[in-house]
Every structure is written in structure tokens, then in C-alpha cells.
């Protein structure tokens, strides 16, 4: 494999350990699995980088899920995720250890941390990748990202700069199962950690109202303008309850105040990749569909047979979504 001269001194695949809400947020484990594959192709190792205060538990989990090495920086100033403090530490580690690839989950924190690190070490970063492969000729990481709101896919490379950085959407890759017999190397770099005094975290509270976690939901039921009213939109919550799913909404439904902004799906809302999406009463406008087109199976219900949503549905039902949902709820209740 050929590599530009500058790049020859960079080795190793790193993954940022984003461990908040560890048991729901599996993206680091997914990236360790994919990173392991990339590392094997490049004949190098996969390292999980763990910053925080008392992080031993997460370090052990990452070894169990496939990391060859764990790099730990354990310090009280790293207790809260803070972009400026983390950027300084990680940029210094990158300059010292020179990984050729550095991956992070596209969590909210990852999406504001990675650009800052990339700028500091002056390298390229692609966001929200949906695929990662090594180009056999160049050894470069080919980063596939959605473009134009998801209508197109762009293959991006960072040929002259290192590390090649990318954030990856949760749910894109699959994690390896937990292996209690795994043993890895652990490295404790000697590094100064200082909190940035210009920013103070005053309060951090878990989001109230039974945490809406659409990004990790396996089943999403989403409603649009066609639901007609808040009472009828609320049926979707009943259905979601019965199917153990989460409820999403289109912009018109949010504007009509049938539910909260945090349930918005689409371009300015959340991107979801569930195993099943049931979309009811939404016509399929581009700003909405870019948020849901990653679902494995899409069932669409709309009274208009020409609604564009049917172009992307595995199963389309032409009819009154409210009536279908209401009756479905009744029948499911009878089965329980």
C-alpha cells in the first residue's frame, strides 16, 4: 500500500470513548467494532481513548467489546464533558502519538468536539458518515457522508493530512458482543490537564419528561399534518407504547403544537435509523424524509395515493391514518 511520505509516521486507529448514558449510547462500541476491521486491513491496532474522572468501568467495557488498547486520562477536570478542556488534551495526544485515523460518534458532544480538534491539529473531518472503508490502492480512509440532505452520497478522503477524522452516526455499525475473557493494553499518558476557566458548567440535569431518545429507537411511529388534531396525534403515543417504540413528528405537527420540538424528525430535527418506521399522515416532503430514510423498513399511511412518501415505503397503505391507527390499537390490545 502506498502512502504519502508525511503520512508514513502516523499509525493506529483511535476511537473517542463517548460513554455518557453508556447503556443506551452504544456508538463507541459500534465504532470499536468497525475500527477493529479498519485496523486489521491496515495491519495496525485499535485504541479507545477514555477521558474522565474514574473511568475504569468504561475502559473495561471497551476492552470487552474489541479494543486492543485503551488510552486513559483520568483527572477531576475531565469529569464533565467540556469541549475546550477535551480539545486541548486530545490534540496534544494526537501530536504525540500520531494516529492515522480518529473516529467519534456523532453524538451532540462528538459533533461539537471533533471539529474543534480537527481545526486545532489542522486536519480534515467528515461528519455523520454512513460508511467507512480503506482504499486498497492508497490506504486512505474513504468516508461516505450524505450530501444534499441525504439525496446523494459523497465519498470523501483526507489524502494529505493526518489523522483522518470522521464522526459516525449511531446505528451505522454493529458492535461486537461482550467478551469477558478479553485482555488488552492500557496506556496512561503523562499529560497536564487544566479546565478552561472561561466556561463554567453551572448545572447539568437529565432531560425531563421520560427522556426522548429517538436516535437509538428501534421502532419509530411518526405523525404529520394528516393526524388532524392533538387528540388524534396522541393515538401515536398509545401505539408506540404497545409496540415499545418512540414517537416522532413532522414540522407541521410541531407547529400545530401537537407535540414537542424534541420529537421533530428531519433536516432541522433528528435523524433516525430504526428497524421499523411507521409514518402516518405525512406526505413525504424532503425536509422530513431526510430524517427517516435510513429506517430499515418503512410503512407509510396516507390518504393521498400520490403522496411522495409512498416512493420510499416498503409497505404503503392508502387510507385514513387516524382510523388505521385507532383500529390497530384496538386489535393489539385484544391480543395482550
Amino acid at each position, binding site marked *: 500500500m502506498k502512502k504519502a511520505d508525511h503520512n508514513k509516521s502516523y499509525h493506529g486507529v483511535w476511537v473517542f470513548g463517548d460513554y455518557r448514558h453508556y447503556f443506551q449510547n452504544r456508538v463507541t462500541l459500534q465504532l470499536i467494532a468497525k475500527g477493529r476491521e479498519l485496523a486489521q486491513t491496515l495491519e495496525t491496532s485499535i485504541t479507545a481513548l477514555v477521558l474522565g474522572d474514574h473511568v475504569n468501568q468504561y475502559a473495561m467495557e471497551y476492552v470487552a467489546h474489541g479494543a486492543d488498547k485503551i488510552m486513559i486520562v483520568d483527572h477531576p477536570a475531565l469529569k464533565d464533558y467540556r469541549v475546550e478542556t477535551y480539545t486541548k488534551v486530545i490534540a496534544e495526544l494526537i501530536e504525540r502519538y500520531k494516529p492515522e485515523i480518529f473516529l467519534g460518534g456523532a453524538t451532540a458532544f462528538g459533533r461539537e468536539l471533533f471539529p474543534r480538534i480537527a481545526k486545532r491539529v489542522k486536519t480534515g473531518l467528515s461528519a455523520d458518515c454512513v460508511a467507512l472503508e480503506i482504499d486498497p490502492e492508497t490506504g486512505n480512509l474513504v468516508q461516505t457522508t450524505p450530501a444534499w440532505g441525504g439525496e446523494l452520497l459523497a465519498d470523501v478522503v483526507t489524502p494529505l493530512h493526518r489523522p483522518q477524522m470522521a464522526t459516525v452516526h449511531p446505528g451505522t455499525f454493529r458492535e461486537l458482543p461482550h467478551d469477558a475473557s478479553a485482555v488488552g493494553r492500557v496506556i496512561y499518558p503523562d499529560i497536564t490537564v487544566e479546565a478552561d476557566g472561561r466556561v463554567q458548567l453551572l448545572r447539568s440535569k437529565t432531560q425531563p419528561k421520560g*427522556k426522548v431518545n429517538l436516535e437509538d429507537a428501534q421502532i419509530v411511529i411518526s405523525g404529520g399534518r394528516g393526524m388532524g388534531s392533538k387528540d388524534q396525534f396522541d393515538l401515536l403515543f398509545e401505539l408506540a407504547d404497545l409496540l415499545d417504540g418512540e414517537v416522532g413528528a413532522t414540522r407541521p405537527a410541531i407547529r400545530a403544537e401537537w407535540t414537542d420540538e424534541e420529537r421533530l424528525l428531519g433536516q432541522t430535527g433528528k435523524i433516525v435509523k430504526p428497524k421499523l418506521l411507521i409514518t402516518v399522515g405525512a406526505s413525504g416532503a424532503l425536509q422530513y424524509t431526510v430524517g427517516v430514510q435510513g429506517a430499515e423498513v418503512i410503512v407509510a399511511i396516507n390518504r393521498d395515493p400520490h403522496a411522495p412518501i409512498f416512493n420510499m415505503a416498503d409497505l404503503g397503505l392508502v387510507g385514513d391514518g387516524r382510523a388505521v391507527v385507532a383500529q390497530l390499537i384496538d386489535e393489539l390490545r385484544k391480543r395482550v
Partner: protein
Amino acid sequence: MNIAVCIKQVPDTHTIRIDEKRMTIVREGGDNVINALDCVALEAALDLKARRGGSITVLTMGPPQSEEALREALGYGADTAILLSDPAFAGADTLATSHVLARAISRLEPFPDLILCGKQTSDSDTGHVGPQIAEELDLPQVCGVDEIHLEENALVVKRLSDGLVETFRLSLPALLTVSNALCAPRRPSFGDLEAAFSMGSVRTWRLDDLGLNPDEVGASGSATWVVKLRSAPPKARGEIVSGPTQDLVDRLIKKLEALSVIDEESRSQ
């Protein structure tokens, strides 16, 4: 309080059409608008100006037609508009884009107390430019802000991040990116826009005005290159069923059973 707002002109998604044969976006003939989240940033700046006084400078890096977006911003109440336009800026990734914007901001007199950006754009959607400007200018950042409170020499801001509601105190100067939960952007009245088009306060800065070399900007100043653009594999249009509600429900139940979302009903019923 002096505020700089970075805006971007993007195609209006409401007027985008898809060329179904080639599975691409048809850009010609569509409208261009200010990126929705940048409108929210501008609105927040106008609100802060109303409370604290000071001036608002809007900046954009783009082709000459981006001037329309700047004039619209002037119409809403921004004081100065700067167009960063040069053929050398074309083909820039966020590393190069943030370099041009950061350099321009560093040349504002006086240096702004606050820089506001939309959290992400509707076209490229990375959300990288704000944090990268903050890094280059060595400013603290908070992204996705949905509440801003003014103190003497600091801001207290709130935002939602990975299921946590976080409240920060930031000393100034600082950079914030805003979410659409912060405030509703205003809609222009014709009077505002006409007034804006007759104002002369759009300055254009080129490569030399910013003291930059060609290899620091545009495609030459970028670290990432797009090597291939292809249409996302289209989802095959599946089965379409019409009929009475009962038929639709039956079909849906069969699908849910096939996916193991619900258990199959035992046949002995």
C-alpha cells in the same frame, strides 16, 4: 455589545426538485434563502442589540449572489454587512471556510463581543464551521443554545445535548451556535427589504483584503476532497395497498408479525 453573525445562503428546500431519472437535485431555477438557523442567530443578535445596544455585523462567504442574503439581513436591522467573495474561496471544506470567516472577524473593529452562527446548514449540514471559527479565534463555544441570558461581562446559556440540559456561564468574547428552539426568526416586510436594497453598506472583502494566501483558502486550503458523488441507493417502492380500514389494518398486522414486532396470533383461536 458588538455582535458578528455568520450566515450562509442556501437553496430553498421548498423549491428543490429532484431529477428522478438521474437521482440528483435540480438547482437551477430554485430560490436561495438565508439558512434557516442563521435567521434564528440573526434574530437573537437583534434581540441582544435591542437590550444592550451596540452593532451587528453580518458576514457570509460565498459567490457574488450571496449579497442578496446580506441585504436581507440589513433589512432586518443588521448594521454592517460583509461579503467574503473571491474565486480563490471556491471549493472550500469547513477547515478553509472557517479560516476565511475567522480571519474576517479578526479584522472587525472593534473585535466582536459575541459571534453567533446557526447550529448547522440545510445543505452541507456538518455543523463544523462555528466550532472551527471558535478554535481559530481561541474563543469558548457552546453549540445548540436555546436560551441566552445577559450578565455584566458574561452570558449564561442553556442547551440540550445528548439528553442533558446544560447551563453554562461563558466569559466574553465567545461564540455560540443556535438551535431553532432559541427564538422564532422574523419574516421580512416589503418595506424592510426595499429599504435594505437601497442601503450601501455591503462591503466586499477579497483574498488580499484578508491578507490570505491562495493555498490557505478554497480547495487548496482544504484537507478533505470529494472523490465521488453518487445517488443514494433509492429505496425500492414496495407494496401499495388500498381498501377499507380493516384490510389495511390486517395487512399492517401481518407486516408487524413478519418483523417479529408482535407475536403471531396462535392459530387455535
